[in-house]
């Protein structure tokens, strides 16, 4: 199955910031996986909360959406829901294409 592609248009003036931002998101993905393995829902809630606040600020609405799901899932200790959101986050980052204008 070919990876799904997600094209996001970001303001041109943020171009210099995006590579670091996305690199940090990939690290964040690993943090989420580790926290889920450890059953650390407090950390999952904190990371989800942060994703929610920062994602759409940069223009990545999907990250905000996934962050909210993870935060809410952590509050309800919804392991399966969080696992699905993490997988979706992985796919999103893998297929992400950024266009600046």
């Amino acid at each position, binding site marked *: 199955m070919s990876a799904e592609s997600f094209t996001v248009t970001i303001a041109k003036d943020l171009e210099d910031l995006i590579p670091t931002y996305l690199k940090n998101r990939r690290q964040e993905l690993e943090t989420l996986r580790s926290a889920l393995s450890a059953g650390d829902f407090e950390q999952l809630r904190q990371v989800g909360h942060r994703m929610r606040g*920062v994602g759409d600020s940069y223009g990545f609405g999907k990250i905000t959406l996934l962050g909210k799901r993870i935060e809410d899932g952590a509050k309800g200790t919804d392991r399966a829901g969080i696992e699905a959101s993490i997988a979706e986050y992985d796919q999103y980052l893998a297929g992400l294409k950024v266009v600046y204008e």
Partner: protein
Amino acid sequence: MSDLAAGQAAQGEFRVLVVDDDADMATFLAHLLAGEGIRTEIAGDGSAALAKIRLAPPDLVLCDVLMPGLSGFDICKKLKDNAATALIPVVLLTALEDHDSRVRGIEAGADDFIAKPVRREELVARVRTLRKLHQTRRELEARRENEERMQRESLRRTFLRYISPRVADQLLDGRIDTTGAFRNLSDRAGVVALFADLRGFTHLSETVPPSNVVPMLNAFFTELTAAAHEHEGTVFSMAGDSLLVGFNVPVPQPDAAERAVAAGRSMIRRFAPIARHWLARHGLAAGVGVGIEAGDVVVGNVGAPSFMSYTIIGDAVNVAARLMQIAAANEILVGPRALLSLGRLLGRSTALDRREVALRGKAEPVQVVVLRVVPE
């Protein structure tokens, strides 16, 4: 000036401190503000933020709420509870639907909120508004400071008519306890009164053209006033060719009598070059006669509502005036009560020229000391 004030940003510059433990968010906010020409600093936690604020208070704090250690509420409350930082606007970054956080933020003293995720337009609009408010506040502060400076200068000029510049500055700076200073007429105070006048004034007014008399008197009073202020005396009146100076009033001077004698000597010495000039130019022999006495007097503002003088009234003043009349040119006559305070200065020297003088209004002659001053 406090450390905080010393660290205050230069006039016109607007500095923002972004406090967020998420480096991506902090970088994003700093980037947007830089686009507005705003200098931004970043603190990754509450302790770092407070340290930066102590060092150089910013004009605005943009602060995340949920952070490890001190929360945004804690930081806000600390800033608002401190008079030195209470006026720095704090904007909290909260989730739009997080009403509880907003209520807690208001309780902590937050000035505004920005919803996360942050909308560029909203951030820029709020910061622009706060910047305008900040500039208006600075302009008002500058205007108020200027008015205060002008009022102080006006007050200083008024004080300088009576007291030395040093005492005036000390009074205005609150370095002198003004309790009891500038007393009402009902108050009595122990003062040392010094009267000085010009020997040869009658001759001067008869021989010198009237147009020259005023400048000559001004030169005389200028030197005598400077001598009085040199020793921190208060000039109470100038009339004709005489000058009344008080010591230990309006501020306490434990060495008031010594100051009065030193001021009298200084008056004679300061006037000497002028006397030499008058002698050479007008053939006029002139000098200064001084009378000093101590005692309790009434201190206050005397006159009509439309014209008042801050003055001293009492026997010590009358005796000083009469001693001045008796004093020859370049002589200081010190009255008996002033002498009591001058032990250290004059000692019990038998070499002193002691004289008994009869004073109008006094049944018994009084013993005075005559100090002759050799003008240098």
